[in-house]
């Protein structure tokens, strides 16, 4: 099929070139659309029409009829065998088909509170194989070979972390599952725990076997009651079946898991603060080294891994490390789960192979911007990350690429912003969060984030000055360089990245050139008077059937007129 597709692509390119249409018609080779049984497939955008089982001889017709004339070639549309309806495009097709589900493979598919459903999808088989057929060193080797990297934000190689923890010979060792998930907008880990809790238990036991630990601890925020409940049920069932407890699969390996609740502080997601919190101390980070792999919980070697990282483990064991490392980009293997939120049509949880572009996530899977508004930026990495603008939408998602454009993978929250979003206000939101969540142990983070927040507030209230921008930048760089832990080191990122890409918005505040009043577009106004009737400060003038005008001085930007206007003739400031 591949060869024929290539020929069709060449033919289409030739035709486009022949008619001199290279600027308006692009022929793009894409990955698999997902329904391989119907290939080769040609999709025409922006119409989103999909032609299936296209033959070389059909290309002419598609080009002549659809591309040039806009007529749909009905006979090549996919036909639903049951309803006999031809469907031009599945409503949810884009959302589903670009996804590749490893982590979320069982979410929405099995009953999380019924262990037999998990067993039926080969649950606990990876654990059984590992404890009865592999040495711990072999397990670590498999994970290293898969090139899995931590999904909690840092992207540290998981196999290496296990190896570092395994090499210390101490009486006790610990596996900790980091289920704190504190960044605003993120709900990936929660969904995995709620939808497939047994996977996490199984993976933790495998990790325990690999590093030589017999205790696992799940650190989860108390704000996730449903996830906690399902974990409790799962642990109980796993014990009944002998998947947890003593002498698992008669191998002599013992492993138990306990759940510990956190109070929901962002900083407690940081591994050293997490360990302090587990030990009943203040949730404050400590200096690294020593790393937890050497001296962690109770000063014993500890491997802290993220929920999503764990969810990748059983499939890697079952399918082999080569399978896993065949997915993704050179340095980032496998998939990543993202929580899409903000001004996007398909808000939801998606899992895509590393290397998928932001363009594909936002427009193909996410279905584009709500109300057909213009895309402005994507915020990734929450309070530790930055914004990605339209110019960088073709960036493939992986750890290094995102860092190179001033953002970060983070844990997977992705907030889509449209033309109406105010970047300074968004930064203020994140700084407010970081300032609140700073544990206060080190000065740069405690005082610095508050100062940054104050400057942003000043700017937004039109009380700032151009010098504030310099101070802001200075502070940001200093806090980044001198904070103790990742929270402070990354808290200035939202400001730095928006200063780079949207400096003019800051300047509009600093130089007080930002428009603060609503405006009426004369060409659109029908003179219905609805706006002037609702204006609470009577600053809209005009008579019936005549264009109305808003007095910019008096407008308080309440938005009442905007909502009242029946013809969208009013624009926001």
């Amino acid at each position, binding site marked *: 099929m591949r060869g024929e597709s290539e020929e069709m692509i060449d033919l289409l390119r030739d035709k486009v070139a022949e008619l001199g249409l290279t600027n308006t018609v692009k022929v793009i080779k894409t990955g698999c659309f997902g329904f391989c049984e119907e290939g080769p497939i040609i999709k025409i955008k922006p119409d989103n029409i999909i032609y299936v089982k296209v033959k070389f001889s059909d290309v002419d017709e598609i080009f002549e009829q659809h591309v040039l004339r806009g007529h749909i070639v009905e006979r090549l549309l996919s036909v639903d065998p049951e309803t006999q309806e031809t469907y031009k495009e599945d409503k*949810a097709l884009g959302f589903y088909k670009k996804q590749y589900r*490893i982590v979320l*493979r069982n979410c*929405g598919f099995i*009953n*999380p509170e019924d262990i037999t*459903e998990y067993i*039926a999808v080969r649950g606990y088989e990876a654990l059984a194989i590992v404890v*009865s057929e592999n040495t711990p060193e072999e397990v670590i080797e498999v994970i290293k070979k898969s090139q899995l990297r931590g999904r909690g934000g840092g992207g540290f190689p998981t196999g290496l972390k296990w190896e570092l923890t395994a090499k210390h010979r101490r009486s006790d060792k610990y596996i900790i599952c980091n289920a704190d998930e504190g960044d605003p907008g993120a709900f990936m880990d*929660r969904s995995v725990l709620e939808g497939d809790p047994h996977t996490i238990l199984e993976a933790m036991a495998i990790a325990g076997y690999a590093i030589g630990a017999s205790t696992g601890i799940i650190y989860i925020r108390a704000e996730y009651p449903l996830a906690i409940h399902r974990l409790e049920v799962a642990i109980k069932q796993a014990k009944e079946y002998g998947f947890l407890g003593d002498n698992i699969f008669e191998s002599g390996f013992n492993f138990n898991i306990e759940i510990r609740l956190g109070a929901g502080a962002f900083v407690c997601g940081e591994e050293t603060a997490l360990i302090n919190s587990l030990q009943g101390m203040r949730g404050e980070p400590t200096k690294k080294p020593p790393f937890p792999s050497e001296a962690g919980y109770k000063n014993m070697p500890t491997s802290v891994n993220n929920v999503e990282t764990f969810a990748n483990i059983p499939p890697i064991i079952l399918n082999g490390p080569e399978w896993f490392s065949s997915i993704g980009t050179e340095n980032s293997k496998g998939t990543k789960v993202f929580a899409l939120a903000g001004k996007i049509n398909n808000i939801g949880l998606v899992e895509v192979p590393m290397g998928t572009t932001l363009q594909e996530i936002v427009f193909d899977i996410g279905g584009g911007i709500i109300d057909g508004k213009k895309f402005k930026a994507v915020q990734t990495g929450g309070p530790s990350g930055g914004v990605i603008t339209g110019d960088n939408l073709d960036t493939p998602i992986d750890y290094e690429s995102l860092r190179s454009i001033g953002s970060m993978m983070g844990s997977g929250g992705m907030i889509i912003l449209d033309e109406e979003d105010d970047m300074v206000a968004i930064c203020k939101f994140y700084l407010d969060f970081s300032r609140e969540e700073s544990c206060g142990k080190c000065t740069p983070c405690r005082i610095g984030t508050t100062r940054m927040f104050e400057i942003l507030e000043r700017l937004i209230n039109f009380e700032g000055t151009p010098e504030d921008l310099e101070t802001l930048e200075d502070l940001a760089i200093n806090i980044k360089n001198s904070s103790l832990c990742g929270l402070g080191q990354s808290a200035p990122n939202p400001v730095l990245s928006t200063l780079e890409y949207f400096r003019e918005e800051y300047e509009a505040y600093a130089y007080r050139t930002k428009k603060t009043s609503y405006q009426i577009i004369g060409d659109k106004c029908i003179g219905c008077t609805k706006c002037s009737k609702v204006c609470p400060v009577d600053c809209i003038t005009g008579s019936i059937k005549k264009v109305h005008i808003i007095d910019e001085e008096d407008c308080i930007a309440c938005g009442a007129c905007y909502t009242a206007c029946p013809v969208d003739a009013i624009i926001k400031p």
Partner: protein
Amino acid sequence: MIVKNLKELRELCEAVGDHVHLRENGKSKDGSFIDILIGMGTCGLAAGALETFEQLEIVLKKKGLNHVNVISVGCVGFCHMEPTVQVNIPGKEPVIYGRITHDQVEKLVNKVIIDGGFLQENYLIKSFRRAVI
């Protein structure tokens, strides 16, 4: 019941696979039951999935449809379309419907389960594909 080794586990996997096979390829050995899955993660519940769940049980009982199971599952990812419901009928590809609030339940049961039809307005996707393994 303690599972002692890999062999026992694989036998158990085979023995309890009927419901999962129905969802995976439309073929259960038994072949007489229908599974309705409801996404009941936090997002689904917030959108009213529990009411949908309860209403489904009531409606199915009222109509004497004892061969239909209602099963709570995690989130499928369609947060913008919650509550989501997946209908698995033997021999057919599973269909996911969105926005099945409790007041849509009766319609769903009549049209999809009893008439064997399709609920066009709520239709999201029809596919066996959920994952790679």
